[in-house]
């Protein structure tokens, strides 16, 4: 029987930790993820877009490949659990309504081009004078207070300038370095923004005062590159990209390998301890590979030596050879198995093996299903339910919750503004 206590199950019907908090978000590709996190942690997030609709409604992919403005799956993912209203902030009367709405909110979340809201007279300094408890979060490409603030930027250019791209790609440097997919610059800025916003909220409980939070997406990706940064900071050394593994100052062994079907697995962390070398040898024995692998003797040496210490690898040639043989043995095993079996059987034997899932394959994995990760959301305009990504973390008492599909254009105007969608005064 396992000695591991069962993790919490989200309390049925309970509200999220931010229940009762009201947030106004000005629709932007920089804020969308942060707004979703706040909404699914329980805040009421009112998403404001122009009456013509936010440009992100034109971001694909689209449901049924229809370019209908209610069919964007970008919108469908990032705006869930929010209420949607339409206001044209360039129009004075709409601006007045916006300001009335602000009088009852705790947070403003916006990613407007620096200077735009000030020109409209609805920026943080003016609002904060009226409402010192307001927490105002700006997420912009370079931060508001930055010499590069006015530069045009996208996910690609931020990740290219800010470090991640330098470290990602292939051993073959005639191929370009690679940007990781999936709007990761926005995610990186958004996660930091939410952490800062929650800290400001906790502070407000003690002081009664809100504040302005200036988030730079560029700074965020710059401090999200692990060793590439701290190695330069302390040693002045530059890492170089390698295929599917950590960029490094010197070449390291491949960690990815094709499985029996040619799909790639990640061999994970090779054996270091006696137990791990023993487990690896046992696995090879069971697969009939122990005698076929040329370096079995090194694995046996790994057992005899009592494992290898990573810190010794550079100075201990034998340790290096043993560690390398562990990796080679895993690559050989992977070539004989289906990736999933390589992952689960290796782990069952105490080895840190892995496989490389395409994102959609996560949704049918038994572990993710057992934890309730794929969740079904009813979409008003369609008959079937749609499977979404679920909770990033399981709160026992105040659960994360995806409450509703993304709002249609002006869907909540009546409730939140007292006007109908598309209504012009």
């Amino acid at each position, binding site marked *: 029987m396992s000695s591991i206590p069962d993790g919490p199950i989200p309390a049925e019907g309970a509200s999220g930790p931010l229940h009762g908090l009201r947030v106004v978000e000005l629709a932007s590709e920089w804020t969308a993820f942060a707004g979703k996190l706040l909404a699914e942690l329980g805040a009421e997030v009112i998403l404001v877009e122009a009456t013509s609709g936010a440009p992100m409604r034109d971001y694909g992919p689209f449901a049924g490949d229809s370019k209908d403005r209610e069919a964007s799956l970008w919108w469908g*993912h990032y705006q869930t659990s929010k209420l949607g209203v339409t206001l044209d902030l360039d129009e004075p009367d709409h601006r007045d309504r916006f300001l009335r709405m602000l009088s009852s909110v705790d947070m403003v979340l916006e990613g407007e081009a620096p200077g735009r809201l000030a020109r409209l007279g609805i920026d943080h300094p003016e609002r904060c004078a009226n409402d010192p408890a307001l927490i105002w979060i700006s997420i912009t490409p370079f931060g508001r207070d930055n010499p590069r603030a006015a530069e045009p930027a*996208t996910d690609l250019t931020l990740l290219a*300038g800010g470090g991640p791209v330098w470290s990602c790609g292939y051993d073959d440097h005639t191929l370009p370095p690679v940007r990781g997919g999936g709007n990761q610059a926005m995610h990186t800025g958004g996660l930091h923004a939410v952490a800062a916003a929650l800290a400001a909220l906790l502070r407000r409980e003690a002081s009664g005062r809100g504040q302005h939070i200036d988030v730079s997406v560029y700074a965020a990706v710059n*401090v999200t*590159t692990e060793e590439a940064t701290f190695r330069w900071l302390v040693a002045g050394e530059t890492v170089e990209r390698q295929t599917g593994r950590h960029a490094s100052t010197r070449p390291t062994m491949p960690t990815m390998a094709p499985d029996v079907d040619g799909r790639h697995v990640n061999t994970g962390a090779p054996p270091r301890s006696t137990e791990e070398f023993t487990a690896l040898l046992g696995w090879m024995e069971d697969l009939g590979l122990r005698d076929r692998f040329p370096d079995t003797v090194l694995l046996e040496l790994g057992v005899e030596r009592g494992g290898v210490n990573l810190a010794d690898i550079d100075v201990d040639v034998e340790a290096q050879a043993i560690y390398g043989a562990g990796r080679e043995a895993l690559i050989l095993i992977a070539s004989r198995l289906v990736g999933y079996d390589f992952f689960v059987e290796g782990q069952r034997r105490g080895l840190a093996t892995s496989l*490389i899932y*395409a994102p959609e394959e996560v949704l049918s994995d038994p572990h993710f299903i057992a934890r309730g990760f794929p969740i079904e959301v009813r979409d008003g305009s369609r008959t079937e339910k749609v499977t979404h990504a679920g909770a990033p973390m399981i709160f026992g008492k*105040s659960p994360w919750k995806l409450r509703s599909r993304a709002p249609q254009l002006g869907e909540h105007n009546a409730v939140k503004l007292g006007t109908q969608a598309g209504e012009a005064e």
Partner: protein
Amino acid sequence: MTTSRRVEPGQHALSDFRICDLTGQLAGAGATRLLAALGAQVIRIEDPVRQGRWDLLRGLEPFVDERRGIDLGAGFNNHNVEKLGVTLNLRSARGRELFEDLVRISDAVTENFAAGVLARLGFPYERLKQLRSDIVYVSNSGFGYRGPYREFKSWGPIVQALCGLTFSSGLPGHPPAGWGYSYMDHHGANFMAIAVLGALVHRQRTGEGQWVDMSCTEAGATLLGPALLDHSVNGRPLRREGMPNSNRSQSPEMAPHNIYPALGEDAWIAIACRDQSDWKALQLIIDKAWTASRRFVDLAGRLSHEDELDALIADWTRLQDRHELAERIRSAGVPASAVQTPSERIDADPGTSEWGLWPTVEHREMGQVRVDGLPFHLSETDWKMESGAPCLGEHNEYVFGELLGVDSGELAELRAAGVM
């Protein structure tokens, strides 16, 4: 027992909070680093028997000079700034008692051991809750505390591989490029910080503590939402011919949008035309007849001839300096950037230096060391990074003596007995 803090109450956003911290590596230590920089008193507990080596980075390169040792790993310093460090043997009776005392005066307990480790040491959530009824407990492991893989081992690359992030980074016709670093250690840490803060907000409002169970793999899978929806709504997998192709932009569709060769060895420039006006501006800069071809006149045309378009642009960028060219393109209002080396973005980029992104901390052994700062500024209670990571047991006297009231005689005995 005193509640004195290093940071004066009210000075920083989280000055009123104390974290009993068992995290390590980046996926855990990165979370409490953020809390510490915002003023929380983070007391990091390490095992004296293993000299804290559970956290591999403690004694691992890079180093600031020729010295080597358990207190000298620069990665460890980077990930543990502003924390207090103590040693405590949780397998000893007195060590467990002192840990219990620490839990009693803490707002949250944080750990990123493999699932079950803390329970085996005698401190499952139920026990922590007995010690302090409103304690916030956040566990962060590769697979979480429920589900068939909960006992599986993980580290950053394993998490990234399983959640879809590795697959999503790459060029067509090649294996996954993945991430050249533990991207999900960073975000495991960021999500974990949000978990701690969210649970503290809940406690502040209701008086109720709780256990938050984080699975890094699950958190990673939330970062690929549109691809998941494309599959669940349209039945279209990302594992298909020609995909992923992550230097191009499918969501939103843009063309040209790629990383192109520039003058010099391994020199590259990223260019993104968001819309028709960006393309027209770029056309003027390129100033060649081919740009006016009917094939490229609108987005649909550029997308259907994207290979040809990219090859022509690459021929144009190939002989140009990437910084000068990026500057010229940006001046026309079009997003562009050199693919910057660490040296360029850290030491020659006002976008980071003017932000104060590389603060210098004082480490007891290493001296002054630059570290990663934070990408946000709070107008009233901003973060600070002044002190480096704690050496092994550096704050034993303050924490056990001053905070918990252990007298100097017993401290010496406990040290001698290997309890700390």
